[in-house]
């Protein structure tokens, strides 16, 4: 069987990965003590776990995680939908692209997180400024990838469809849209992790809910374990978003050779 070596490789890799995790956790628990690092700099694993339990009971950790996750989801969905729509429109209208490209470029270069204070001035300490920062940050990778994909569809494919008397709508739905999906998913993968960045910056800047709020609250109290817990939960939220995109990609792009698809790194 030709598959056996590949399986063995995957199993070996997974085993190495698991043992690396054990080594990391052990180093985290006892490393700081051995090296004489104070617990307010690097709290050991058990201290962080205790803090997580305390936050769960006292600080509504689940609620704050839920708020952040909800903002990430909303920002990601709206941002990628708008990115895709603009990508298709600009991809199909070179005139519009030429007209708008300097402004799009300027917006793309501007650090999106810098808009957070502005959005909070506009919308107050609500969830909306956080979502808006995420929307802005997710928009670009998706739009750029879709735009490029639409622009680079093989013109012979379009001509083939035209020779079969395809309408403009048929060309879009049967040729252009499906061929833009692989690059779009690449954009969505990037967007899913960036959405977390956008939301957490918004929460850091102002508000009283979300993991970003807990992060700055913990910092204010010099509660290092709390900061660690918040970072871990943010990583968890980002991972769930990323894995969700990967699973969706596998379903949608099932027709592609396995080696062409993204792997769970």
């Amino acid at each position, binding site marked *: 069987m030709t598959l056996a070596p590949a399986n063995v490789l995957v199993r070996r890799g997974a085993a190495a990965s698991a043992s690396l995790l054990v080594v990391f956790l052990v180093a985290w628990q006892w490393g700081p003590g051995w090296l004489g690092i104070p617990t307010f700099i690097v709290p050991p694993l058990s201290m962080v776990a205790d803090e997580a339990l305390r936050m769960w009971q006292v600080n509504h950790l689940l609620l704050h995680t839920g708020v952040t996750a909800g903002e990430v989801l909303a920002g990601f969905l709206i941002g990628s939908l708008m990115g895709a729509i603009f990508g298709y429109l600009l991809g199909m209208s070179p005139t519009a692209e030429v007209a708008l490209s300097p402004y799009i470029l300027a917006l793309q270069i501007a650090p999106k997180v810098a808009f957070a204070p502005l959005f909070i001035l506009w919308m107050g300490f609500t969830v909306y400024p956080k979502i808006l920062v995420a929307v802005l940050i997710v928009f670009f990778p998706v739009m750029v990838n879709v735009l490029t994909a639409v622009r680079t569809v093989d013109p012979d494919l379009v001509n083939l469809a035209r020779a079969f008397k395809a309408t403009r709508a048929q060309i879009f739905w049967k040729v252009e849209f499906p061929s833009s999906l692989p690059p779009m998913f690449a954009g969505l993968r990037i967007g899913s992790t960036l959405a977390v960045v956008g939301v957490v910056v918004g929460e850091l800047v102002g508000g009283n809910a979300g993991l970003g709020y807990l992060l700055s609250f913990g910092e204010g109290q010099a509660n290092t374990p709390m900061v660690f817990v918040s970072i871990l939960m943010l990583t968890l939220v980002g991972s769930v978003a990323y894995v969700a995109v990967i699973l969706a990609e596998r379903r949608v792009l099932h*027709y592609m050779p396995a080696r062409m698809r993204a792997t769970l790194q």
Partner: protein
Amino acid sequence: MPPTVRLEYRDVTMQFAGGGQKAFTAVSEVSFSMRDREIVSLIGPSGCGKSTLLNIGAGLLAPSAGAAFVDGERVTGPNAHVAIMLQKDLLLPWRTVMENVLFGAEIQGVARDERRARAQALLAAFNLTEFAGHYPYQLSGGMRQRAALARTLAVDPSVLLLDEPFSAVDAQTRMVLQRDLALTLQRERKTALLITHDLLEAVTLSDRVLVMSRRPGRIIDEIEIALPERDNPLARRQDAKVQGYVARLMDRLDIGSTADRSAPRAAGQDSV
């Protein structure tokens, strides 16, 4: 009763505005017609406008002067009488082989059951039935070209326009595909215009070969291929007369003297 004319080019001239520079003429006053069930090959040097003629026939390009007619109707745009097939298989990677074969019929709104039945018959004819549910990347180059040919036939065109359909596959696969094409065209009673650079392919597959000149492309020769067994190009290859036809085509295409002509250009490239 006079034979039916399937495809006709009448004084077709095509000029392109050459990217800000002065316009160039790709083809100039080309006229020829094809009878029902005839297979005609079009050969000529690169850039002589063969593909342009094909695109005009498919309705993808509008000629600057003259017109193409299919089944007596003037071609004004893409139409259901003709179907094209290119060197690239152009199979859609997200569709299975079956769905790819259905692509054209689906666009043209052929009823679902009818197009399914037709596609199944074509897949069977091309030995692709067991691969109906496979995706293009799982197929060999030869199978992909057969799937592309099945897709072309699935819309039941009266004329097939084939632009170097087998030039991207290896020599052995090409011979098999040539046989498949010849058999299929015979069985389905189709008319076909074939562009090729392979002189042997032109001679063994066709009833008639048209030779085009350098740009601006004109038809400079027309050779009737008086060989038996048009549906068996492999047998035709063995025919003693084939070499004579190929030699005549080489002569008409100036093959031999072109080597001398391109020599200074190659030297120029070396000096860069």
